[in-house]
């Protein structure tokens, strides 16, 4: 199919890969931070959705996109802290807590949207603001690469910065060490004076903060306003990306890029009169296959390790 090759050679396709990967990367990194602290956080979908709405509302009220972004971040942290309070203080099962947060965000965002605008579908009637796109000087002059990397929304670059910041934080800061210690063996961490609860609170708050950036991206960059259920499963895809990346920040980001690629492919393939319904499931099938491949690798690695130990 020559047209498919054309598509893959076209810089605008790769530009769109980065564009659709941005929210997935935010959510996947958010999931990773709590996972490192030993918490399976499945509330990314809801956190993003709720932050998307908060960003729209605050930016419309203040007429400033950046203050809107702060509003989105506050909403994300608040939601995550709610989850933290229930799981850490009241001992709610964290998966069910995540289910509840998602349910709350799904219904709650429509509820609030309706109270503010009288519309249950979109926030077009709110004069909300959009975060600016950034043209990187010099790089935008490079052929092909410039067209792919330059000109994205500011949040896409913030996503890239977040990846490296979290990588560095987990690897070489005292906080990162504590988070990993709590995740791997919380009693051992407690015994050397690390408060597991405090660290888990902190990691959930950080996770909410990062997921909220993904939400803000949806309603203030990817699209110019909020619409109901606009995250449409990205929070779940991010969980799969995180599962595939298995705790590695860079591996998780790479996995997110794979899903972004599958997503962009699905969008682009629809032009080739392939059935939209089947093209739409590509990212999910890719997730399952990726997850299986990863799990097989882990299983084999374990087996090898087990085998090498035996002679001793």
């Amino acid at each position, binding site marked *: 199919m020559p047209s498919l090759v054309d598509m893959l050679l076209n810089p605008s396709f790769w530009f769109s890969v980065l564009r659709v990967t941005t929210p997935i990367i935010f959510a996947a990194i958010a999931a990773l931070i709590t996972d490192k602290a030993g918490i399976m956080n499945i509330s990314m979908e809801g956190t993003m959705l709720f932050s998307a709405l908060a960003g729209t509302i605050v930016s419309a009220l203040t007429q400033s996109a950046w203050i809107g972004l702060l509003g989105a971040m506050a909403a994300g942290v608040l939601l995550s802290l709610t989850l933290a309070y229930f799981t850490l203080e009241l001992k709610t099962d964290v998966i069910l807590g995540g289910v509840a947060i998602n349910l709350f965000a799904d219904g709650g965002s429509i509820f609030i949207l309706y109270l503010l605008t009288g519309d249950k579908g979109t926030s077009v009637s709110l004069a909300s603001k959009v975060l600016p796109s950034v043209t990187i000087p010099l790089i935008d002059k490079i052929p092909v690469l410039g067209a792919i990397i330059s000109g994205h929304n500011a949040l896409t670059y913030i996503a890239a910065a977040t990846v490296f910041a979290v990588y560095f934080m987990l690897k070489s800061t005292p906080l990162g060490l504590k988070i990993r210690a709590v995740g791997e063996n919380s009693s051992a961490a407690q015994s050397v004076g690390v408060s597991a609860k405090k660290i888990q609170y902190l990691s959930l708050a950080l996770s909410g903060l990062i997921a909220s950036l993904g939400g803000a991206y949806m309603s203030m960059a990817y699209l110019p306003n909020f619409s109901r259920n606009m995250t449409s499963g990205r929070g779940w895809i991010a969980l799969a990306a995180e599962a595939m990346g298995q705790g590695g920040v860079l591996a998780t980001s790479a996995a997110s890029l794979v899903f972004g690629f599958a997503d962009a492919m699905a969008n682009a393939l629809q032009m080739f009169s392939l059935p939209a319904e089947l093209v739409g499931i590509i990212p999910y099938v890719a997730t399952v296959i990726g*997850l299986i491949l990863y799990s*097989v690798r*882990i299983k084999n690695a374990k087996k090898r390790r087990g085998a090498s130990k035996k002679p001793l």
Partner: protein
Amino acid sequence: MRQDKSFEFARTLLSIAISLALAFAIIALSSKEPLAALRYFIIGPLDSASHIGNIIEMAIPLVFTGLYYSILFKSNLFNLGAEGLFFSSGLLSGMLGATTYMPPGLHPFVLILAGGLLGALLGLIPCAINYKWGASTLVVSLMMNSILYGICMFLLNNKFRDVSSYTIVTEPFQATAKLARIIPGTRVHAGAIIAIACCVFLYLFLNRTKWGYELRMLGSNKHFAEYSGMGVASIMFLAHAISGALAGIGGSVEVLGMYSKFQWTSLPGYGLDGALIALLAKSNPAVVPFAALFIAYIRNGADMMARLSDVPAEMVALVQAAIILLISSQALLKGLRERSLLSKLKGENANA
């Protein structure tokens, strides 16, 4: 034990009470005429036979997905795949209902059986993938929802679609395929009987059979189950097959009972509701119908309130989220319970 149960019960009641108080507070804050809105919310669903019928008809699918999660919770397995199974089996039964001919009575029975079978088979997939390769059942089941939805919509749109219709629907079901109405003046259909039968079956299965015992044992202590020589893997497969079958039966019953052709174009959302029902019912199949009726009641109340006043029906999602959070809070009322245990112990010591 007895005291444990009564504390569980008190915690459930307290959770419901707090959540309903939250609902009242939301109504009071968001409505211009809160008293009228509140009246529609509380009394509206009960004020006529047809409204009560609405509650029962809405509770039917919730019972099936509630049972789905009950069996998973009991065996300490968890996945979020009910949604996709419910949809797929619904489509299968709907498609067969439109294209096959059978005597009345037998027809829906066969279709529902087919739906249950499909549900069981699909329910086994995440379990098998987990068993064979170790991939997370939770994530695979979630992805399967979207995959099944895509495949079903493709089949519906390209293979089973009624070409004479402008919307994406199957051809109308044969009259023999539909489930009969059982209460005059309402839309309550024979699916209610099937739902109750499934509850009874699951209750007996869990509490009176060897497999049920093994399944509960797997849930309460997996290592013990392993060491006592139970085939843990086969019990896990069994749990997934039964829960899948229940979700599949639920999808078929809902489609054949409520519609005259298959017309869903999005996932109907009963999957996650099931987790809420199972939580409310403490995974006890005998309590599942009551939990389903309660949730159906507050949803109908919210719907009526949305139609007749200015509070949107989505309010109910906030109430449900609060119920889930509170009921699954192990620490809620824990202090009270510990104090009562302590005082009881002290009393016993004093007597001794």
